[in-house]
């Protein structure tokens, strides 16, 4: 396990913004790399990622394992990320509290599983399988869902807390996902935040989305990573800073429709300020060597 003593701010590595990341490296503490973007490369080409990791601290983010599932994850998927993990030794790696396939059928996106005790059992089994191969636990990210998973027995916060407690894993809290889920079910996002196991948060995602029609006059917020981070997410981050004294890794997620890089830097800086305000409000100080991921 690595120990961290301060908040860190970064951005998702996307080739489209590579020059900006290099040029403004001094403003960026780390980059988050999508693991699946590198699986198809041969070993010699994967070493470019090792070069990136040598020059900018890297975290590894998987998007297809589907750990929160009653189905056992295939060993080859664990091996894929294990090989990448070994080659670049990221600060940490992360995946999602979701399922992505049913049998041989690939869903093609991150799907929220029914929030049941049974699914928690499946999740624990998958985490144990990952642990045996990698030796390093992932942070688990809450996902956005346009519908409440049918058959759920718990709230999002309760299920998340129980899952992470049972597996002894920590949380990558995506604040836009939390906000979108709260909005879409008519809840208060700040209440949703407090329901989450904030003591387990180690990393944060900030992203943007857009409103989509959901039948009739209804609209829902879609987390599409193609828009700027809305003000509310910075407010949630500030609140999180007050609630969670441990150092956090905060990254901006942007997958396309990239604005000028200076605008993305502005989002990083605003996140920095928001978290600092939250810290100030709480009077919390980062405890040196207190955070283990």
């Amino acid at each position, binding site marked *: 396990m690595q120990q961290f003593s301060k908040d860190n701010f970064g951005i998702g590595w996307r*080739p*489209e913004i590579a*020059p900006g990341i*290099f040029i403004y490296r001094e403003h960026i503490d780390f980059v988050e790399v999508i693991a699946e973007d590198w699986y198809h490369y041969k070993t010699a080409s994967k070493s*470019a990622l090792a*070069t990136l990791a040598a*020059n900018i601290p890297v975290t590894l983010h998987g998007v297809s394992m589907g750990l929160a599932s009653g189905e056992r994850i295939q060993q080859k998927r664990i091996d894929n990320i294990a090989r990448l993990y070994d080659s670049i030794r990221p600060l940490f790696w992360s995946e999602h509290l979701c399922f992505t396939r049913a049998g041989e059928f690939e869903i093609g996106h991150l799907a929220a599983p029914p929030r049941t005790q049974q699914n928690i059992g499946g999740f624990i089994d998958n985490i144990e399988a990952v642990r045996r191969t990698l030796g390093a636990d992932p942070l688990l990210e809450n996902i956005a869902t346009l519908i409440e998973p049918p058959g759920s027995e718990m709230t999002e916060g309760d299920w998340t807390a129980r899952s992470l407690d049972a597996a002894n894993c920590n949380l990558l809290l995506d604040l836009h996902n939390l906000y979108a889920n709260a909005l879409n079910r008519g809840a208060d996002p700040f209440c949703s935040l407090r329901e989450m196991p904030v003591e387990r948060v180690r990393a944060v995602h900030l992203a943007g989305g857009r409103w989509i029609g959901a039948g009739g006059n209804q609209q829902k917020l879609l987390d599409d990573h193609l828009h700027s981070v809305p003000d509310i997410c910075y407010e949630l981050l500030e609140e999180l800073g007050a609630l969670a004294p441990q150092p956090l890794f905060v990254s901006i997620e942007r997958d396309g429709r990239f604005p000028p*890089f200076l605008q993305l830097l502005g989002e990083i800086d605003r996140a920095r300020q928001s978290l600092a305000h939250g810290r100030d409000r709480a009077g919390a100080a980062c405890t040196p060597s207190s955070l283990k991921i």
Partner: protein
Amino acid sequence: MNIFNLPGPEFLAFYTVLLAVSAAALWFFIRSRESGPAVKLNNISDPYKIAYLTGGAAAACRLALAVLLHRENIKISEKSKCVATDCGRLTITDPLEKKIYEYYSNERDASAAVSSENIRAADHLYELDLTRAGALPAPEQRSFRNTAFFVTAIVLVGILVIKAIVALSRGRTNVGGLFMFTIATPFLLWFVTHPRLTSRGTQLRKHLQQLFSDLRTRAKTNRSVFEGRESAMLGAVFGAQLLSSLQPKFARIFDRINKTPAATSSNSSSSYCSTPGCGSSSSSCGSSGCGGGGGGCGGCGS
């Protein structure tokens, strides 16, 4: 078998194989000896350091000139030469840009960007850092390269000399082929034993190009996304000519630079200062903005 008793053509064939195998062995030996973990640069934000890595001092100087022209810190005069403007003088903070800018305080050809004075400045700025990072050969590596070169060259040229003596002692005078190989052998061996970059440096260059590869293929459609410094970084990784496809303004600049007198430096993999005659003069410090990424123009216009 005594190789020196081989008839001329057979001996030359044998020697060709021997030379090729020796060169290949030397190449692999030196590359593996200079290999190691991924290079960590002191500062990956400096496009001129990256340009120095990918194309040498001349590439860094040319990129700096292109950026200064783009920012209108230097303009192309009516005499088709480059000259520094007052535009954004105080915003030039990069040391190589400062050097190039000051160099052009007097009107000069664009190709003069790679004068020995500027090359030395670039070497002074970047060579030591890249050497310490392992991208350029360190003194002990250079020493090993020289030893490998001399030992191999002496052995191989010695074989040629002995064969020539044997041939001449037997009354043969057709030793032209031996003579040519005697000249060519040291050149080939030097080329093989003295690549500019170490294998780690070559890996770094390759990896940077791979990390940025999407942008190279999409450069034409991404014109509006990159501001000056980001464009400079792309130019550093792929060569300053890529900037032409990124922004029309760079294309016009390179078009003019390419019409200037030929470059005087050979220390580069890129060469776009080739022919005489710049296009018509360009610019005042105006609407396109001086000091891209570094600040405003501040009262240059008139």
